[in-house]
């Protein structure tokens, strides 16, 4: 508007400055207002989306944080489990018999009914019993009390995820199976404790037994290897580039390519790792060590960029002060600049590691999405990682994995939020003013 007046009016000095300012005030305030509304609007939108994400995950995932268990009095029949055949034996038959003994209408001689009864318990129940007997063979011939997970359909029934009103032929559990479960409920044999197996069990084909232990340990080793490689290399490269490298065409070229490296899609790093680490160096497939090296390739540019920014942010007066008393370049960098840049470097590193923790594509390519039912004992053992475990579970047909997938995502988000919180804490804690 001011421009318009200046254009049409040959003599812009018609009013005083105060008049001109007053005339434009409404317009300026309106613009500021619009900007504020847009800002608040976009933040609200982001929060709404975050809320929807978390709410949908919690609503579908909270069921996985509990697991239906059944408590049974089990008579370990020496005929089914003879001492000399340990660790083999008819542990499933023993459990079925114990169930049949408490249920009114279960006929121990009806093979079909007994098979249906066996499916009430988790497939892992017999192994749990076996391990207990192997550990203490004196239990043979005695009656022991055991609490074991029920199988997935009964867990779903207990959590109200199977609708009893559905016609029988479309329902996963038949009327007589539901009747059995109700009898057990009435006997108070059914409990729904916290599902510690979600964290302490390795992966399994059976949802009621599947847990994240292997994925957590795999992710830990991968991140550890990633940190050990990318942190010193990234900081070293950044210090050299920022403090020591001559500023010429070559260092410009290096800088541009580090920025390019940070923008390379992660799946490409996965292919590179597959070709170089596994194909060429012959490192084991599915190993967190290889996963960590792959993630380090991706994290290093992030750390270099963050470190350079942090080094640049150290005021030149501090360098001059140190140089002025006769510190060498090396003493200036390691005695003054680097400690002052450390909070920024740590923040960048943790954010880089948090990205690496959530990275899926490169791990898929090096085989960290294998089905592995034992937790790795070291970085060279086959393992999965949290995001690839989510990928596997999301792909599984069993109903029980739906809630477990959401629960695993919540666990992953929990770790990410924790890491980001640590980085904010470190930044506030060690930030110094000068």
């Amino acid at each position: 508007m001011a421009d318009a007046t200046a254009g049409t009016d040959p003599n812009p000095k018609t009013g005083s400055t105060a008049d001109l300012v007053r005339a434009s005030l409404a317009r300026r305030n309106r613009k500021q207002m619009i900007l504020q509304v847009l800002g608040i609007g976009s933040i609200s939108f982001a929060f709404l989306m975050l809320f929807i994400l978390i709410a949908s995950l919690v609503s579908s995932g909270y069921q996985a944080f509990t697991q239906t268990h059944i408590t049974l009095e089990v008579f370990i029949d020496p005929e089914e489990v003879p001492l000399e055949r340990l660790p083999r034996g008819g542990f499933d038959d023993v459990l079925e018999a114990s169930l049949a003994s408490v249920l009114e209408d279960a006929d121990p001689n009806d093979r079909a009914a007994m098979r249906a009864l066996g499916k009430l318990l988790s497939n892992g129940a017999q192994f749990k019993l076996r391990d207990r007997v192997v550990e203490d063979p004196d239990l043979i011939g005695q009656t022991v009390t055991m609490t074991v997970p029920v199988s997935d359909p009964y867990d779903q029934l207990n959590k109200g995820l199977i609708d009893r009103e559905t016609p029988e032929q479309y329902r996963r559990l038949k009327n007589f199976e539901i009747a059995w479960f109700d009898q057990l409920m009435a006997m108070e044999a059914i409990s729904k404790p916290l599902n510690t197996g979600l964290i302490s069990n390795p992966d399994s084909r059976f949802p009621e037994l599947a847990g994240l232990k292997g994925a957590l340990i795999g992710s830990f080793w991968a991140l550890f290897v990633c940190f050990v490689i990318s942190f010193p290399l990234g900081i070293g490269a950044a210090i050299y580039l920022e403090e020591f490298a001559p500023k010429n065409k070559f260092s410009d070229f290096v800088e541009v390519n580090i920025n390019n490296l940070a923008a390379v899609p992660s799946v490409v790093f996965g292919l590179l790792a597959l070709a170089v680490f596994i194909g060429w160096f012959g490192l084991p497939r599915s190993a967190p060590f290889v996963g960590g090296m792959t993630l380090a390739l991706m994290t290093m540019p992030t750390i270099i960029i963050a470190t350079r920014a942090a080094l640049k942010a150290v005021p030149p007066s501090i360098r001059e002060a140190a140089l002025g008393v006769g510190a060498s370049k090396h003493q200036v960098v390691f005695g003054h600049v680097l400690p002052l840049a450390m909070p920024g470097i740590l923040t960048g590193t943790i954010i880089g590691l948090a990205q690496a923790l959530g990275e899926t594509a490169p791990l898929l390519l090096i085989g960290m999405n294998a089905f592995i039912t034992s937790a790795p004992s070291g970085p060279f053992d086959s393992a999965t990682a949290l995001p690839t475990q989510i990928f596997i579970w999301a792909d599984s047909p069993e109903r029980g994995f739906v809630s477990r997938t959401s629960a695993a995502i919540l666990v992953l988000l929990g770790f990410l939020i924790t890491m980001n919180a640590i980085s904010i804490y470190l930044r506030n804690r060690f930030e110094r003013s000068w």
Partner: protein
Amino acid sequence: MMNDMRKIERDTVASEIKIQARGVQVFYGDTHAIKDVSVDILDKTVTAFIGPSGCGKSTFLRCLNRMNDTIDIARVEGDIHIDGDDVYDPSIDPVQLRAKVGMVFQKPNPFPKSIYDNIAYGPRIHGLARTKAELDEIVERSLRRAAIWDEVKDRLHEPGTGLSGGQQQRLCIARAVATEPEVLLMDEPCSALDPIATAQVEDLIDELRRNYSVVIVTHSMQQAARVSQKTAFFHLGNLVEYRETGQIFTNPEDPRTESYITGRIG
């Protein structure tokens, strides 16, 4: 202004030449910042560099301890000798030189460390103290010399950045003298200080003259008149006039000097 010149009358002690500069040229990229400057700076004397902004006085000061080396595009030509040794000789390490030629900067720049560590840093890296007691002594002596000991002796282990501006600048002076330099370069040391702190620092500079050759860059002609015995007037990269402070302010030879000190250029 005449009232501020009380110290001009003070005798200039006839002393030896500490720094001898001949034909110094400095280039920042294509800019010719210092043009053929030759000057002899005396020992145990305060020498002031005055001149309008951008005249090259700070640039020349930074040649004396090779601080210009840290600027990639800066190039220095000519000879600078301190005690007869060529400062720009390849065999001279700038680290060695800067231990001998201390520097105080325009803005107080204490390290974000304790007051004690600020002073002890230089002696530590140069290995000037063998024991903790010796280091304590150096710290105390340096702080006393900078006239700040009484103010900070009870809080030596608190951060130096927590001091007031004037205290921080005296801390920086104490840090500079802790390594026992022979020359002290001061680049507008009072420009960020209030009048009281300025007066303290000026008294201190007068004290330091007993032990050091002090070179001070200043924008304030009154300050140059108050603290220095010799004054050099720089203009557009040239050293226009270099004489006894009293003479330069009362009887300048060059018309440019006269214009500057009477406030017509600057």
